């Protein structure tokens, strides 16, 4: 573990007006094992540094020693809250590199389940963000909705969290018998629940005073840092991989991208809530238009992409999650590099936090929606 140097002007605590404080890896509000080192002047943050790596598991190195079809279960453990989209980026990279045609029914089912996964991830974001700011009841309500989605995942994939949802070429199993009924029921119940969360939070003066003007990042700054996902769209930049480079069945879906104005925490909160509504709209359309047919393509005996490199990214719930794959023609990849959205979003933390109070740091970490599994891999 390296020593993080933050220069202080004087030696002892009592002399200097600045205090170095450690929000250590074990902390209820840092959403995983993140260590944030704060330099404070009283209660204002002057400087901030993040120390990561507590969850490093060597996923990219492991991937160099496994066959292509065996890597997908590991990818679930990256952004473990939204495992389905991680699996999707891996599988689509390999498929596109090999030029495999995936049947349309698989594309549509992938769209439905990935959007359900997006809603699940945003629900957990809402739950933990509200918990950090103090509205504890919203945590339990959002987790109840997420439970419904996880039940659908369990019935479809066999696991709730780390699903191993996709296979190269499609899906292992077709939709289970009650799939339409369950998803339709969820889609019908969901807007009412979102309205409930908005009733408690959106107009609440305490919520507004904790989130308006906190953690502001402007559009140009966001692009310079490389933010993506709701953090970028909250600052008003219109970039969504589902629209710019459509994958799966998104080219056929009709949905809108919510954009914020000021780039503060409240805007990102509203953007994510609206994204949940748009996701519901996508699921609705995809369920209607679901074509029949097979759900997996014919694969060669050993999956071997041609020699070369390929980068593919999708719009995960946290941002643009990408996979850069270098293949040397053998059954195991030469190098796999994940573009983790949370890692890049975390770079903005310093700029967002400096000048705010300590209690706001927790709110800002929450609004960036980071997952340490992705940051540390």
């Amino acid at each position, binding site marked *: 573990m390296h020593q993080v140097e933050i220069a202080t002007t004087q030696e002892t605590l009592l002399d200097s007006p600045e205090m170095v404080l450690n929000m250590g890896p074990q902390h209820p509000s840092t959403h995983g094992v993140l260590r944030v080192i704060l330099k404070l002047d009283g209660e204002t943050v002057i400087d901030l540094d993040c120390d990561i790596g507590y969850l490093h598991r060597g996923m990219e190195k492991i991937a160099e020693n*496994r066959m292509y*079809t*065996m*890597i*997908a*279960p*590991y990818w679930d453990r990256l952004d473990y809250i939204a495992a389905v989209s991680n699996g999707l980026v891996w599988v689509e990279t390999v498929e596109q590199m090999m030029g495999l045609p995936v049947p349309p029914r698989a594309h549509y089912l992938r769209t439905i389940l990935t959007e359900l996964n997006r809603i699940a991830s945003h629900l957990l974001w809402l739950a933990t963000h509200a918990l950090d700011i103090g509205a504890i*009841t919203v945590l339990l309500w959002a987790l*109840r909705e997420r*439970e*419904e989605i996880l*039940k659908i995942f*369990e*019935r*479809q*994939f*066999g*696991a709730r969290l*780390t699903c*191993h949802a996709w296979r190269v070429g499609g899906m*292992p*199993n077709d939709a*289970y018998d009650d799939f339409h009924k369950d998803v339709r*029921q969820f889609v019908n*119940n969901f807007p*009412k629940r979102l309205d*409930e969360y908005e*009733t*408690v*939070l959106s*107009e*609440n*003066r*305490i919520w507004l005073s904790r989130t*308006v*003007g*906190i953690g*502001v990042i402007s559009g140009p700054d966001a692009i310079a840092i490389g933010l993506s996902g709701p953090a970028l769209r909250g600052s008003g930049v219109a970039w969504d991989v589902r629209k710019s480079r459509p994958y799966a069945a998104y080219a056929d879906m009709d949905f809108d991208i919510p954009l914020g104005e*000021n780039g*503060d925490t409240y805007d990102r909160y509203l953007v994510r809530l609206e994204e949940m509504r748009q996701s519901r709209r996508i699921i609705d359309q995809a369920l209607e238009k679901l074509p029949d047919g097979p759900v997996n393509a014919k694969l060669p005996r050993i999956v071997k992409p041609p020699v070369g490199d390929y980068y593919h990214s999708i719009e995960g719930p946290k941002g643009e999650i990408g996979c850069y794959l270098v293949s040397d023609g053998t059954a195991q990849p030469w190098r796999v590099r994940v573009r983790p959205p949370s890692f890049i979003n975390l770079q903005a933390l310093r700029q967002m936090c400096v*000048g*705010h109070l300590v209690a706001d740091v927790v709110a800002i970490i929450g609004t960036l929606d980071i997952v340490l599994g992705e940051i540390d891999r």
Partner: protein
Amino acid sequence: MPLVKTPKPTFAQKLKRFFMIDLIKGLGLTLKFNLGALTDKDSVAGKGIYTEQYPKVRPDVAPRFHGAPRLNMDPETHDTLCIACNLCAIACPEDCIDVIAMDVEIIVAGKPRRKKVLDEFIFDTSRCMFCALCQEACPTSCLELTQDFELATYSRAGFVWNREMLEQGRETVKYTS
């Protein structure tokens, strides 16, 4: 704190702010949930209680659930369906499976032949990620992941299952109160 541009409030909005309508709406919703928890039966769409009182109530596990592994046997002859092809061990990303085969002599059409049968099957559930690649690889549907999720043991060695445990399953204590 940077100022954000906000529109000028109308008179109705000012009155609402004075009477703290935003707070009262939130409080009203919580009160409805409180009363609903006592009266409403619908927990998915309504305001009823969502808790499943496990272990009093056994949970509803999906048929496709990736749970504890099991080696299936032929229902009539009670022989194992495993043909010791080793495909599951090859498919496993974590190298949890060890298939030990042995050769036996059988007579086929009068001539003695050597057939490979299963001797011992070691499955290390502590390394397993429950990804179900082994279940997909098995050609005879012998290796299957069941709905059993209560896999805790008192020792590390208890996680390594042998053929007998895989075929017969484990005794799980069912709590009824």
